[in-house]
């Protein structure tokens, strides 16, 4: 193993806020009417197939991977928007209830920011109505210190950087720029004083020059309000800029997790390596690229689920190291690498880098 020094200060993580344990989410396979009458069945899609991770107080955790890897499904399960088929989600140590009614207080604590701010704002509501909607749904008529609804809305807007708030409250979403719309989405999340913000590709629909501002805002909320942030993204450059830890998902599993500096500079899983190789950069046209499409969650390969696309297997290196049989036949979990990260790869036991 190479001994390059990675600048990584040990992480000081706060207490856990959300713990995901062995989460599984399946989507029912669907067939056409005729095929169904003939008794044909389609296999279920195992979108999330045994994910465990912990989000700590005031932490920014990036969940990265290709489309179809289960990152958004994991995020939705954490939001309480779908019922897991197996496993548990704990919030401040307590398992999430299953009934919609009992979930309500929890949902207030966990707010979501989506990719497309234009699509997530009602075009016929004023900014005030949009930011106040969450408060009304949760029946909140005044804040903890007796603030009025107007005051709560104004505070949320100014925390989201829309200052002075009174300049914006009577406007409609179409009167704002893309960056401002995303700030409104964040303001409506903040109105409910959440513990957690789940941001699904929060800047990928925004113009390059505006992205930094929105990311800086998320970091500021973390610093000032101790909000934990889960960022779902395919963009490792974004993870490098803002996250404390990165979890890389492949085909329904976390295959590598650890401090950002470590995971992105000395990855231990060949899939993380492959994702890093395709980050565009000058002169990078001849880099290795995984062939094939993102894999199909209805047909999960035996053994390590990445082995059909794994460069270490394809190049024959796995055979040389004597682990090829295990790569193709033996499923595996995350294991400690000796450093602060964890990876699900047979190379880890041999202390080899991908």
């Amino acid at each position, binding site marked *: 193993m190479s001994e390059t020094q990675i600048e990584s200060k040990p992480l000081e993580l706060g207490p856990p806020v959300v713990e995901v344990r062995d989460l599984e989410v399946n989507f029912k396979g669907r067939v056409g009417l005729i095929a169904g009458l003939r008794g044909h069945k389609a296999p279920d899609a195992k979108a999330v197939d045994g994910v465990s991770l912990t989000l700590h107080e005031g932490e920014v955790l990036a969940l990265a991977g*290709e489309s179809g890897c289960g990152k958004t499904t994991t995020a939705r399960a954490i939001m309480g928007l779908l019922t897991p088929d197996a496993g548990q989600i704990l919030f401040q140590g307590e398992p999430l209830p299953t009934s919609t009614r009992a979930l309500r207080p929890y949902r207030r604590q966990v707010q979501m920011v989506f990719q497309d701010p234009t699509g997530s704002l009602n075009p016929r509501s004023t900014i005030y109505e949009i930011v106040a909607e969450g408060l009304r749904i949760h029946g909140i008529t005044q804040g903890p210190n007796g603030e009025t609804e107007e005051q709560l809305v104004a505070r949320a807007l100014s925390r989201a950087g829309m200052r002075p708030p009174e300049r914006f409250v009577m406007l409609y979403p179409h009167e704002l720029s893309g960056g401002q719309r995303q700030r409104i989405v964040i303001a409506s999340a903040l109105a409910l004083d959440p513990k957690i913000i789940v941001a699904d590709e929060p800047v990928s629909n925004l113009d390059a020059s*505006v992205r930094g501002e929105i990311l800086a805002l998320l970091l500021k909320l973390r610093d000032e309000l101790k909000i934990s942030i889960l960022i779902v993204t395919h963009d490792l450059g974004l993870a*490098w800029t803002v996250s404390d830890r990165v979890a890389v998902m492949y085909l329904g599993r976390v295959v590598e997790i650890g401090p950002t500096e470590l995971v992105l500079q000395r990855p231990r899983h060949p899939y993380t390596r492959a994702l890093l190789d395709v980050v565009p950069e000058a002169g990078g046209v001849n880099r290795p690229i995984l062939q094939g499409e*993102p894999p199909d969650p209805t047909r999960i390969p035996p053994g390590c689920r990445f082995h059909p696309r794994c460069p270490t297997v394809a190049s024959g290196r796995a055979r040389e190291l004597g682990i090829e049989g295990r790569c193709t036949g033996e499923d595996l979990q995350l294991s400690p690498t000796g450093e602060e990260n964890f990876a699900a790869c047979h190379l880890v036991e041999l202390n080899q880098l991908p």
Partner: protein
Amino acid sequence: MSNVLELRDLRVTYHTQGGGVPAVRGVDLTVGTGEVVGLAGESGCGKSTIAAAILRLLPAGTKTEGEILLNGEDVLKMSAAKLRAVRWAGASIIFQGAMHSLNPVRRVGEQIAEAIIVHGQANEREAKVRVGALLEQVGLPSRRIDDYPHELSGGQKQRVMIAMALACNPSLVIADEPTTALDVMVQAQVLKLLKELQRDLGLSMVFITHDLSVLVEVSDRLAIMYAGKIIEDGPAELVFHSATHPYTKALAAAFPEIGDMRFRGKPSGLGGDPPDPQNVPPGCPFHPRCAEVVEGVCDRIEPALWVSGANSHAACVHASGAPALEGMPR
């Protein structure tokens, strides 16, 4: 090197109920044979308008002025018949979100062949052979010729669109955000394919995207647009790594290099919003958002593309070749 495309003082004004909206405000751009020119900028900067203007695909009522010389002939002066012949055979476009522009009820092979047959380059049987060869060229097995679009993945559909763009051997290919909607790994595959095709066929290309990191990978030269004008141009790596214009610097900083501690925990962005095209600020259009603004100069003088380095230009008072300007500290 002869130029495949030459834009001379191109101006495009959209017609709306609220009056004319100038989207492109005087652009000069040349694309040499076998050259790839990357055009970057935020949404609304006019980059896609230029793409559409080259083949006169803009909505009726749009005012286009200047010259668009495609292989020396002005597209704006062409007759309808001549224009039809030039579209696709002279220059073709790979559109943004191209995967959705395939007709869902026709086989992909027929859709590619249509362009070849319409342009009279082959009869039906010859066209089919050519389509098979084209599919192989873009990395799809030729048996895919009889597939319908829904049988293909996003990346495969984009490959079909690339095959279609190459069908009539155009001298210029315009790629407008060709990989934006694709997944990371597929995006890398498609970029590699485009780069290989460009090299093997000696294609001349205009490559348009807001993602500067993609552009620098595929382009020879970069032109950065802001508010309907080119504000910086030059060799791709030079523009990306040592930009002169503060706007280009901000764009480049939006695509951090992994491992570079300067970006860690420090997202950088521009304040403010792109200008309203109907109300562009006086002086340098970027000055209200600029980190290096010189009070009393930038709000008064609109910079031209001054020399800023070897083969590069920047429309900024900080360019090394900027003339002496009144009020400028030296």
